[in-house]
């Protein structure tokens, strides 16, 4: 393809090529290095790691960090709760958001614009932290697992993404099904939903990542309940309890064990991010379509 352009490969274009290469190399290093460094630290002997100078590979290989982390009772409870909230939260949210989107994307629906407006408003106006906190307390949602999936179940952004996709489906399918006597639920389950698989995957991905990564609700509403702790919240406690000591060699010398806050943190971080890192490359096409629908069209 370059043959046509040979006479135009000017100085500027050559500089552009150099700039693109340098930019991309720096970008990739900046993105990957901290993650790879964390993995290297997580497999390194604790006391040795405090000396610094570990980059992409462990210097003194050890698995002690992982056996320690995986033996932490709170972290295991957190992992269980996180898996549960991700599954329950994602399924319930997808079902209800899809139903709402289905309703407001029906052309003949009587309160189409009213219901749409009702949800769009929630994107811009909300009660804020304190009134929400009091409401959850009054509803008995604090100190319970339910606070993880009920309040965030329906969200305007996801409804809009789903609605936009559903509006793009041909009406003729619905009309012919109705002629055959199908009710709305049948149309939703048998016609719309199968066609919406890509956008369902997108929304499920958004919700699941949000569920997996959230920590604030655990801290705010279930601080006292260790049985409802989450993975991220446990990681946060682990990080903040040792943040002040990071890099202090004295702290490591006193210990006889080969684990230190630095390496424990690293291995806990790897455990927390591993599932997502393994999964996201395969879901790329879904979030790319989803973002494009949600962003470019609205």
């Amino acid at each position, binding site marked *: 393809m370059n043959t046509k352009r040979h006479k135009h490969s000017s100085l500027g274009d050559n500089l552009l090529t150099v700039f693109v290469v340098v930019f991309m190399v720096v970008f990739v290093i900046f993105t*990957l290095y901290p993650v790879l460094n964390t993995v290297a630290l997580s497999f390194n002997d604790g006391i040795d790691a405090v000396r610094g100078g570990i980059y992409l590979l462990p210097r003194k290989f050890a698995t002690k960090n992982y056996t320690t982390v995986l033996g932490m009772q709170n972290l295991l409870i957190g992992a269980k709760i996180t898996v549960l909230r991700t599954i329950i939260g994602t399924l319930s949210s997808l079902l209800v958001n899809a139903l709402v989107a289905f309703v407001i994307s*029906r052309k003949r629906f009587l309160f189409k614009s009213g219901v749409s407006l009702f949800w769009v408003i929630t994107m811009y106006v909300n*009660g804020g932290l304190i009134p929400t906190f009091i409401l959850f307390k009054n509803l008995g949602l604090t100190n319970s697992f339910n606070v993880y999936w009920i309040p965030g179940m329906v969200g305007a952004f996801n409804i809009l993404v789903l609605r936009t996709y559903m509006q793009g489906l041909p009406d003729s399918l619905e009309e012919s099904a109705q002629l055959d006597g199908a009710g709305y639920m049948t149309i939703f389950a048998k016609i719309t939903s199968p066609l919406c698989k890509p956008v369902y995957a997108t929304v499920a991905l958004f919700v699941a990542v949000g569920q997996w990564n959230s920590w604030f609700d655990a801290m705010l509403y279930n601080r006292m309940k260790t049985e409802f702790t989450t993975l991220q919240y446990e990681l946060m406690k682990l990080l903040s309890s040792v943040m002040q000591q990071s890099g202090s060699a004295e702290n490591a010398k006193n210990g006889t064990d080969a684990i230190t806050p630095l390496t424990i943190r690293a291995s806990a971080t790897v455990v927390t991010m591993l599932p997502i890192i393994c999964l996201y490359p395969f879901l790329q096409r879904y979030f790319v379509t989803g973002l494009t629908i949600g962003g470019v069209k609205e």
Partner: protein
Amino acid sequence: MAGNDAVVKKDKRITWKEIKRQKTLLIITFFVTIYGIIFYYLPLSGWIMAFQNYKPKNGLLHSTFVGFDKFKFLFEDATFLGVIRNTFCMGLLNLVTTTIMAVLFAILLNEVRHTLLKKTIQTISYLPHFLSWIVVTGILHDSLSSTGIINDVLLNLGIVDQAVNFFAYPKYFWPIVAFANCWKETGWNAIIYLAAITSIDPCLYEAASIDGASRIQKIKYITLPGIKPTFMILLLMNIGNVLNAGFEVQYLLGNGLVQSVSQTIDIYVLKWGISQNDYSLGTAAGIFKSAVSILLIVIANQVAKKAGEERLF
């Protein structure tokens, strides 16, 4: 949001026959609307607290009204004025830096001709978006610590004589937060711009090539104008969010030494409202934030309208 509605025929009259026909839809709407009222609209009634000396034992109905006293307290509190400045400046700094990075990344990635390489770089670029702020701030702490990579590089290049404790100086805090946001979201934010670039008519590039345009000229005269509408819409959407962009990072990275520049409105609300139990003051600060956000959206939308650009509503 509208536009689609205009196409629909205006023969929607509420008749019993139609209600019966749409029974299922109406039942779903009924339950979901109740849900929406409870979780999205009911908390708005809590705004009354901002005008009261709210005591949980008295409730909303029996707490004494104090008018605008709480707001007066807020605006006479030097800390809160600093908090407003922090929230606004960090929000704006984040918006500007992340937007520039996303546009730059999208344009430059588009110049990478090797398809597999391009795909690989893009996949890598999404990675940080999927990590939680807890993980990201933890990694950042390690990288910026006295034995971390940044200090290693600075020491080896002779830029500094001894390791810098980046989290101890207020002057580094805003740049660190902006960097953290860019690190996490550049690849993700670029998705929309890349989609916008893809949707530019290839004929334009071909015609430009025939006319002898250089690659830089094509970027300047075709790509940049091509992504301008997307840029404007995202800018509009994000301007209303400027004040919302300040909680997780600041909360997780902040410490006593940099408190004067790290505290944002949301952290202030959390501190006064939940930790100090002054629900009224926390709510007042929250209302202030919502009001400014809405104002910003409306202004941005008006400006866009005047300039004849795309707009939200």
